[in-house]
């Protein structure tokens, strides 16, 4: 289930911890495996990661469900991770999320029909200075307005 290439990547993380503590690499391992499986995890993939790191599968599952960064349903090519914590909320995040939903036709937690975008509400991404904001891939988009959202969406392929 895990490609050789991904295993090599995981091994570099395992090597950072003392011998016998390979399960410490679980967060990175889940991230690596998620990345090579179109951005989401399944029970089988979590099982494979747990087996590879010789840890109880429920412990890997605990990590995978604790953090927002792991997706447990298929996601679009671009995941729009919209912050809805206090700074963004005070600056109108909720209205902008509704706008984004209407504009893309995608409800939070779902994927667009063409598989291009999915929308996810996330906790604080540490960019309160630029609230309201969202993240696509590794890129932060700050001080969002409906116009700005339109431009960003138009740029997605």
């Amino acid at each position: 289930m895990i490609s050789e290439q991904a295993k090599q990547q995981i091994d570099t993380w395992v090597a950072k911890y003392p011998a016998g503590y390979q399960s410490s690499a679980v967060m990175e391992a889940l991230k690596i495996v998620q990345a090579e499986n179109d951005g989401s995890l399944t029970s089988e993939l979590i099982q494979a990661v747990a087996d590879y790191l010789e840890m109880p599968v429920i412990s890997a599952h605990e990590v995978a469900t604790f953090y927002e960064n792991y997706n447990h349903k298929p996601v679009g090519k671009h995941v729009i991770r919209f912050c809805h914590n206090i700074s963004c909320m005070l600056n109108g995040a909720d209205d902008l999320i509704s706008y984004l939903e209407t504009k893309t036709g995608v409800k939070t937690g779902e994927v667009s029909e063409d598989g291009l975008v999915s929308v996810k509400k996330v906790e604080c991404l540490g960019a309160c200075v630029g609230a309201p904001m969202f993240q696509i891939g590794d890129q932060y988009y700050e001080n969002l307005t409906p116009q700005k959202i339109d431009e960003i969406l138009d740029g997605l392929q």
Partner: protein
Amino acid sequence: MVDIEIEIDGNVVHGHSGESIISIADREGIDIPRFCYHKKLSVAANCRMCLVDVEGNPKPQPACSTPASAGMRVHTNNEKAKASQKAVMEFLLINHPLDCPICDQGGECELQDVAMEYGSDVSKFNEGKRIVADKGIGALIQTDMTRCIHCTRCVRFGAEVAGIVEMGATGRGEELKIEPFLSEGIQSELSGNMIDVCPVGALTSKPFRYEVRSWQMSSVQSVARHDLVGSNVFTQTHKGKVKRVVARDNESVNETWISDRDRFSYEGLANENRALTPKIKVKGEWQEVSWETALEAAISGIKKNSAEAFGALASKNATLEELYLLQKLTRELGSENLDTRLDVANPSSASALETTISLTGLEAVDHALIINSYLRLEQPMINHRIRKATLQGAKVSTVNAKAFDFNYRVASSVLSAPQNTVVTLSGVLKVLLESNSQALPDYLKGTKVNQAQIDIANALSAAENGVVVLGEQVSSNPCADQVAKLVEQIAKASNAKTLNASATGNTLSAEKVSFKPNGGLNAKQMFDADLNAFVLLDVYPAFDCVDSAAAIENLSRDDAFVVALNSFEDASVLSFADVILPLASFYETSGTHINIENVAQSYSASVKAAGDSKPGWKVLKVLADLLELPGFDYTDSSQVADDALSLSPSLAATEVDIIAMEVPNIATVWQYTPYASDVLTRHSQSLQQTQIGQVSEATVSEATAKILELSQGDCYKGVPVNINETVAEGCVFVHTNQARQR
């Protein structure tokens, strides 16, 4: 550890430096409310219920994770402590459904008790409560996770005690749930203890669900006699029925845990297959008769035959009293044909391997060599002690026919078919003796040694507190005596202790009263000799006898008169028996269990025997009286126990020669699932529905399968074949809940 003095609620109490406040308070009988703290589990400090006021601290401190220090002044019920406890209680009750009237935990619920004391009678919470969907975790534990307060006791129990991490806390915040990864069911053989540790009604007993309210039951102290430990239990009864079995604390025996087998086997008592009325066979037809008639028929049949033609076979799970009376009856009749070792391939009169280690002593070992045993399933509580030793760094090595799934890491393992076990152990012994510069006995001179044997020998001789454990599977081995002898020698050469778990149940009671032929015939020889009269004490040959077909065939002879004392009806017993005397089952009779430490634990009957069945000791006493045998003037089972316990085993040990015996090229190791190990568990439906209970496979390696012309999915002795390389060459490992077939 330094003794310190602290003050709790104005009382001066003593503790050790570093000990938690709650543990000192518990010892002193000072009540501090708690949910997540459990004396046998690690400290999580996540429920915050045990907040107490420690003078000098601005904030209240959790008593479970605050170490006591000299001169500390603690208040558990001043205003500050009470205010915090009340606040925590309010938070804990926010999402709790308060469905106590329909909750099985009601009446014995820690949350209910603490809420009575510390809760408010009015809730300020008007919002919707959280609801958690239940995944379902198997046949033994009922989940109602909406009631869960996230104390994580069950999670810690799995990780720390059961050794299989199955439950976990997934999600976070409002979404946090306690659940297993998949809903396939919990696999631990100790899982039922999660019910005991759960402070609320989230995990309750599934077979007990909606049976009766907890306060309507009476608790009777009893002892479980499924294994060599004799775990202490409470049987909880209502209207003459056992409704539930829970653990009873006994630090030196079972601590606070019991195995699932001990906990759920009681279900079999209410099974419809119980033998409830005396029966005699008249012209091939069964007739239900009175006890008088049945006993009359029994003694006239026994009297017709000579003493030499009389044999008695008994279950290993019988009580000490039953075994004592049956051997006395047999010996008074003038027969020495006695045996409980029905499942042993080659029962001999050799002295059994002695156990020289205590249960608590097992926790202190630094190396354990486990031979012929799936100890985790055979003797869960003994295995638990060894697991505790491994947590302190002990290493485990095994010599087994199959690579078993232990709940600790096995450092080195040797796969060895029964016919090779003597050779494997001889090699280990040779290395040990050579490293001690001791002279080699003749039988070791030609022994070749390989690296695996050297590793095991070195690990054993490096260990300061080693133990060698001999398990149940050795009974399938025709060379069992030689194996036992080698174990003894290996232990001697490495200064290790020994633990004999080769026969389970109340087998040490059988040893105590010498329920073995002293010059007479053993089980196998009795069948070979075509005896004319048998008394079977709770024996079911289809399951219990090593060659079940031959046993049944022999017992079915026209000239074989069979009296069967049975707690359950069984088709094969009905086919060959002439008289059936219904026998009181577990918890229905008073009795005594002798455990692995040679501790005799007596218990009284928890409930009256079902139907017309009677306790075995009474039946055997009356039988002896009717046979006009002297010395059976007992009025109470405790008198029988006193007589039995005053005996000292009289069997002279015979020498065992370690010689190559003729053994088949391909051997079968037959092991029942722990839930098919005795007649009561076989009739407990819930245990049968567990993953452990449903196993039925004959594992064989590819090469061996080729020789036997078996392919995947075929049946071997009625058990589906599974070909893989976890099993030793030259043997078939059968793990099953099915009766033995040829």
